[in-house]
């Protein structure tokens, strides 16, 4: 919520730099037309004539414009940005921790963590030695382009890859472009093979789908063939990699994909 007026314009997002742990004051940018006077009832009486104003404008045009600005800023620095989305608990942070530990000496990596509250994930990433900022969205259920812009300004990365861990949610993040170069959806075998059909928007938007926790396949009822079939229905031809971020299965394929993204 906006500290100035109490409006919920940015859903109460705070950006926390762990090295300077006072939350950045809301560099809360209202669109030019956003008014702070919040007038009371100013409707005219019934029967007043009206004028039609045709807008034909996309609802998310503002976010999409900010995302395009992020994309240009990233391209100017030769940076790749990955928007990593999944349900809570699918292993996003564990994969990022391991990737940071095993790849950061070869590829410059910075991380943006998104959660409603706490800096738990940013602390875990910080322990790997990789620069990180935490975005706390408060009541918000997804990251948006303006939050990512703030985090990028704090991180100020030079080159390499920006890993953006979105808020754990298979619904809302699908709609909001952050300016990323690729969208990755992670799901774990413990969630059940039916998720691509239950949450088709997010799976459809993915450039890469990572199936995590495959070390647990012997213990859970997860139908791999059904998963592959259902992914094909919502995102025909999507790249799917299977891995275990804890045991290490499939990580070479993930690193190969990542390196390929960084090639000019």
């Amino acid at each position, binding site marked *: 919520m906006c500290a100035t007026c109490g409006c*919920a*314009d940015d*859903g109460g997002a705070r950006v926390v730099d762990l090295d300077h742990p006072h939350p950045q004051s809301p560099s809360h940018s*209202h*669109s*030019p*037309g*956003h*008014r702070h006077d*919040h*007038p*009371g*009832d*100013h*409707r*005219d009486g019934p029967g*007043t*004539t*009206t*004028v*039609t*104003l*045709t*807008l*034909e*404008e*996309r*609802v*998310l*045009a*503002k*976010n999409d414009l900010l995302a395009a600005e992020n994309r240009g800023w990233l391209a100017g620095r030769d940076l790749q940005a990955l928007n990593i989305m999944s349900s809570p608990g699918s292993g996003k942070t564990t994969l990022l921790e391991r990737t940071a530990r095993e790849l950061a000496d070869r590829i410059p990596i910075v991380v943006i963590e998104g959660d409603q509250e706490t800096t738990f994930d940013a602390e875990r990433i910080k322990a790997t030695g990789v620069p990180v900022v935490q975005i706390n969205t408060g009541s*918000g*259920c*997804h990251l*948006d382009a303006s939050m990512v812009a703030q985090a990028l300004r704090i991180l100020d990365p030079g080159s390499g890859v920006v890993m953006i861990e979105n808020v754990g949610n298979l*619904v*809302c993040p*699908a*709609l*909001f472009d952050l300016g990323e170069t690729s969208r990755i959806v992670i799901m774990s075998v413990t969630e059940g093979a039916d998720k691509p*059909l239950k949450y*088709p*928007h997010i799976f*459809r938007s993915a450039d890469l789908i990572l199936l995590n926790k495959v070390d647990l396949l012997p213990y859970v009822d997860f139908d791999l063939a059904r998963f592959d079939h259902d992914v*094909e*229905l*919502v995102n*025909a*031809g999507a790249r799917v990699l299977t891995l275990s971020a804890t045991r290490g299965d499939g990580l070479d394929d993930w690193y190969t994909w990542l390196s390929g993204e960084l090639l000019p």
Partner: protein
Amino acid sequence: VHEFAIAESVIDTITAKTGDATIREVRLEVGRLCGVQAEALRFCFELAVQGTAMDGARLDIDEPPGLASCQSCGLEFEVRDLILLCACGSARVEVLSGEQLRILSVEMAA
């Protein structure tokens, strides 16, 4: 729910064009495949407009159906969700319509 953020985005976008003018009606196009629930958006809009120039405005939502075309056999057909499968069995299906999320027009007090 992202519908609240969508409602705020609708209000911001309109206000940027109309300033303080009183808005009586907002017409939106919310395609059936766009990932936004019209009813949830309606609920959130009513909350989000409180204290703005759109307070009390009527919300008219047009919900165009999903249309898709099969890349394998060329059939065009209506789709109700993003599980895209042609009757011919192919999943190589392109969405033609239904993903729109637009503000069409507003009625301003003259």
